């Protein structure tokens, strides 16, 4: 069996966390390589948190919030979107494989989507790591 990855997921309380919950209740299967940190809003995710994750040895990071327009606080995730866009760009520029850092929108009703997102993220992170090992 493949080595378990360490992926940190920052999930907003109102949508993605509930979505993940729903995925569990609905028994959708998805890899268990993700460790979830619940945040009030994806806008709470300070880019420093993401840096800290990588610094402390995380293989990947996922930030997940409500769909644009659905933020519990009206507009928190719009800011997140801008911040993460820039951060991802910067990571890329410095040579951190872009497949190691993901942003997704998962609503409370999208249990299936959550499972799909995690599956895709785990695959991507794994691929990135295999790629760098080859180097």
């Amino acid at each position, binding site marked *: 069996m493949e080595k378990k990855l360490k992926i940190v997921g920052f999930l907003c309380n109102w949508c993605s966390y509930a979505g993940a919950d729903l995925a569990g209740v609905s028994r959708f299967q998805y890899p268990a390589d993700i460790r979830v940190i619940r945040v009030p809003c994806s806008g709470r995710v300070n*880019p*420093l948190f993401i*840096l*800290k994750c*990588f*610094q402390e040895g995380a293989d990947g990071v*996922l930030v997940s919030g409500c769909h*644009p*327009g659905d933020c519990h606080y009206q*507009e928190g995730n*719009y*800011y997140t*979107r*801008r*911040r*993460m*866009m*820039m*951060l*991802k*760009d*910067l*990571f*890329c*520029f*410095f*040579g*951190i*494989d*872009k497949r190691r850092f*993901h*942003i*997704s*929108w998962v609503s409370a009703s999208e249990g299936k989507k959550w499972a799909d*997102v995690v599956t*895709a*993220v785990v695959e991507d992170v794994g691929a990135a790591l295999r*790629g*760098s090992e080859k*180097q």
Partner: protein
Amino acid sequence: MIGKIREAAKRMLDDGTVRLFLGYGKNGLGDTVPVFLKHKEDVEALYWDETCRYNLTRYLTDRDVICLEEGPVGVIVKGCDQKSLKVLISEKQVERDEIRIVGVVCSGMKDDNEEILSKCGTCDSWNPDETFCDIVIGQTVERKIEEDEYSDVEEVEALDPAQREKLWGKYFDRCLRCYACRNVCPLCYCKECILEQNDPEWVPPSASKENNFYFHIIRAYHLTGRCTDCGECERACPVGIPLRTINRKMIKAVKDGFDFVAGKDPEARSPLTRFRRDDREDFIT
């Protein structure tokens, strides 16, 4: 030109328009240094030539030198420095009323080897903005502005991730963490930088390649949407890290992503404190 600068400074100090004047002078070695004048008799110390590279707006937020509440301060700005000043005003670090701006037309600054600075080649603001400055000194320079191609940034972008990591690794391995880049930056004015916090400690203070990597990510990110490419960081770096390339990467990203260029409008808000409902989504998983 220098005569006019001295005259302007003298007048302002004399009639009490300002209580302090920030300009350029010379030290005993003949090197250009920032000078802080308090008396009109001192204006002879002012100089102007193509080595006045420093961005003096950096000192406007230096509490060890200036307390803006105590009365207005005069400052010499070049076109490039003026952009930083606009950001400082937009971020409410400096009140426009607290300063008197002496814009000086610049036709490019030179480094210690007498070569024109790379930032001056693509500079679009040799002539300070007359509507923004209190006085503009010097004849307006007519020149064809070269389109900024961001070729330095694109060169790095063309590499694959592993090559990029190696490239920056080479530079960051050299980094001493002297923080000259941060301290010389007019926009790094935080009273307590997060790099100095130890609880939580975001990056350990020791200069290892890995720690430096995170330090530079943080530095670049904090300047995203704010940096005006005055190039002071790169100039100050004793070990030659191409910091402008990093900053310019983010300038380009902000321009592409949000159609925003910092330092144009003193009223503008940084793009990361705003949003559009139809912002790009192509990076979302």
